[in-house]
């Protein structure tokens, strides 16, 4: 009796079991890439107050912005926040050099950060360059 050899007819097909892993990997990649939300914010170039003093040409008087807890003043004159940017633009008009557009920002100790951000944003919007005035404390020993 002849037994027909079935032969080695192996069905050659790509291992479909790997496709699920491949699909899963691709899904993970897209989920990870989509989920990282970039943070938002604002760059600020703040020259060091000591350096700024050295570079300031003699006779130049920079604008001074004083911040309190809720208000703001330009060169000692109280200004409403709604009028701040136009007033600042007016004062900075015609000043082309960066050292001329320097605006010294003084704050009281109880000025909150969000108020500082708001006002300094308006100064930058008007074309000013922020210089932060920080009070230094020194311990002096008296004899």
């Amino acid at each position, binding site marked *: 009796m002849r037994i027909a050899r079935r032969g080695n007819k192996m069905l050659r097909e790509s291992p479909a079991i790997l496709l699920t892993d491949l699909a899963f990997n691709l899904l993970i990649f897209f989920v990870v890439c989509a989920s990282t939300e970039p943070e938002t*914010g604002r760059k600020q170039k703040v020259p060091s107050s000591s350096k700024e003093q050295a570079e300031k040409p003699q006779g130049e008087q920079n604008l001074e912005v004083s911040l309190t807890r809720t208000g703001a003043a330009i060169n000692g004159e109280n200004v409403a926040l709604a009028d701040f940017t136009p007033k600042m633009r007016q004062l900075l008009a015609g000043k082309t050099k960066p050292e001329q557009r320097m605006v010294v920002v003084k704050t009281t100790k109880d000025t909150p950060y969000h108020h500082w951000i708001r006002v300094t944003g308006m100064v930058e919007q008007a074309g000013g360059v922020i210089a932060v005035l920080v009070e230094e404390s020194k311990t002096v020993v008296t004899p």
Partner: protein
Amino acid sequence: MKIRRRHLEAGVPAVAMADIAFNLVLFFIILARTQDDSNLRWKPAGAPKVEAIEQSRIVVTVDEDSKVYLNGVPKGIGELTGNIEKLLKEEPTGKKIVLLKIHKDTLAATFEPIIEAVSQAGGDLVHVLTEERE
């Protein structure tokens, strides 16, 4: 005549193991964070115009209790300049970015010395803010 049955071996497809291992590695890489500051509680201040900012390895955080952290580690304000200088040395020129994540109600007595410290250390300040829609 005896016809012998083929003895089929049922084996685990070892080919898929590589993918499983790769997936596990991927999960741990994503979950592991070198700088975990998710425990710090702070709310960013709002600003009308904000832009997308680059990530940085140097982050100064001030939480709602006005505690200062550098890369998630509590630091005194006096220690900031020196520590930031050390970290900035490792950064390439032009990319010396220091992110400031300051809670919106922090007072000037806390954040101003921080800004000065970063400026003295030679870093480029970037305030992390949210967009304030009027």
